């Protein structure tokens, strides 16, 4: 098992939480975590793995931080 910190932002927090350390099986992907959280992957705009955006198919490892954002903008 690996420990991954999952951080949620904007409306993903509603009915959930802001940040939590969760345990997953080795080989878990960001997609698997999104599914576990019962979030529709199509609603996720930014999949940060340790601060870097990229595909949800990336595997996570022990100590990683995942930050999930819906579409947002501003400036």
């Amino acid at each position, binding site marked *: 098992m690996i420990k991954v910190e999952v951080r949620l*932002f*904007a409306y993903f927090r509603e009915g959930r939480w802001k940040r939590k350390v969760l345990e997953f099986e080795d080989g878990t992907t960001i997609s698997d975590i999104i599914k576990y959280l019962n979030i529709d992957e199509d609603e996720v*705009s930014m999949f940060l793995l340790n*601060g870097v*955006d990229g595909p949800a198919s990336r595997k996570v490892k022990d100590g990683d931080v995942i930050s999930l954002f819906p*579409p*947002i903008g*501003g*400036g």
Partner: protein
Amino acid sequence: MGGYMGKVIRVNLTERSVKVEALDLKMAQKYLGSRGFGVKVMLDEVPAGIDPFSPENKLIVATGALTGAPVPTSGRYMVITKSPLTGGIATANAGGFWGPKFKSTGHDAVIFEGKADKPVYLYVEDDRVEIKDASHLWGKRVTEVTEALQREHEGANVLSIGPAGEKLSLIASIMSDLDRAAGRGGVGAVMGSKNLKAIVVKGSKKVPLYDEERTKEVSQEKVKILRDDPVAGGGLPTYGTAVLVNIINESGVFPVRNFQYSYTDKADLISGETMTEKYLVRKAACYRCPIACGRVVKLADGSVVGGPEYETIWAYGADCDVYDYDAINEVNYLCNEYGIDTISAGATIAAAMELYEKGYIKDEDIDADGLSLKWGDPKAIVGWTKKIGLREGFGDKLADGSYRLAESYGVPELSMTVKKQELPAYDPRGIQGHGITYATSNRGGCHVKGYMISPEILGYPEKLDRFTLEGKAAYAKLFHDLTAAIDSIGLCIFSTFGLGLPDYVDMYNAVCGEVYDEKGLLEAGERVWNLERLFNLREGIDSSQDTLPKRLLEEPIKKGPSKGHVHQLDKLLPEYYEVRGWDENGVPTEETLERLGLKEYKKYLSLATE
């Protein structure tokens, strides 16, 4: 032809005279209006090398062809002048309602020349244009001025400066509708230097439409696109621009302590989510805006006022290492009241805090003010903001921005500025394309003239890898040109969260006539960009100023998700010049000027290389 009202007011404050001139429609169409119109007037009418505070400088307030037209986000106007902060072109944009109200008087723009011998304001009610005495308003803050003028002129909209503009703070803004700011470049100080306190407008005219039916149809279509867009119709209205705090911080590009760090574990204390949960009273929309990103918040004393934008929250928050929302809301209100640019003010206090930390500013320099310059002190950001607004004590030095402050201690490199204007809330070391827009922005350190954060962080209109260089120079040029076009037609750049070039062509052509195709409109933006560049070159701002603070080029980010990166400007800048059609010194080539229909400005090319 629709869109334009066809008239320009020219006010000579020295002579106290007012003339109304016909707008040259061919010229307006070529340069679109607003920003493009103003820059052209500055280049054509203002001699090179003048002091920005001299009567020779002009202050232009201009609307675009679509400002006030029945299309979404048409609430914008632009202030154009020679900046006392940068010495180059200043183009400061604001929303709200003032712009459309001004245009409803039947005028596209007003050009101020000279200097009044005592405080005055301009009153425009349709064809009636009068210079009026403002002695009783001098020294007053923005709310007091606005309320006094609205008592005198019922139903009018007010644009004014606060005390900071009167006292020629180089970071003074121009305010309208109480809390909308034409913020950057010290435009408020130019207004103050002319003894012009306010412009009060009341009108009854409608923007003429080339094709009313088509305008209605196009407008409905674009409103729907914006409403359905997950950002323009979702994240932005729900959380305001402050929704960016977390994504920028999580990406490790949220500058902390004057760009010494780029990540903080306290960001959520000042996030959009926290503002919405604890401080938001209601949202606020500008004229004809379906997005409504504006915030109205409650201060600690219970008063309800305009709330801070993302950039303000960063400048006074993380950049000063302050995570106290009450203090940030209060300084935002104070900046609006004194008429101060929040980005430059917060970033200047942050630079002062670093100068204090490093021992350049001594306790005895600030003891008499009774305020600290310690990182994280909420009382300090509130106290120094008031002193900047009044040029009191050490606030007098802060009122001229961080470059002049740091330079006075012999360490200008501690000022996080480009062309002496403070950088906004993104560390370009971890966002390479955004860095090239910082370095090359015609008005100095700025994020709104080419917002590469969209593709590099937010994935709009597509995702780009923020650390790579390939294609970034061309992308940055495209964003610069498109933004110049959107600014110049009078729409809000936040409409790009949903709309693209074809949508702007649709709206411009429906309102004005079948003038532009996509290539043509983008090229008009490019024309405006090049015209600004020529203005700057004429004023001696050459490629040596297309750079970033040394820290961002040489010191790798110390920790967080973007650790180890520096900005690779040396690789991107030559490519940017090349895609622009400029020579290796950043000077437009003759061919480029010819292609853009700017042949008449070739004379400035020799000035630039002298």
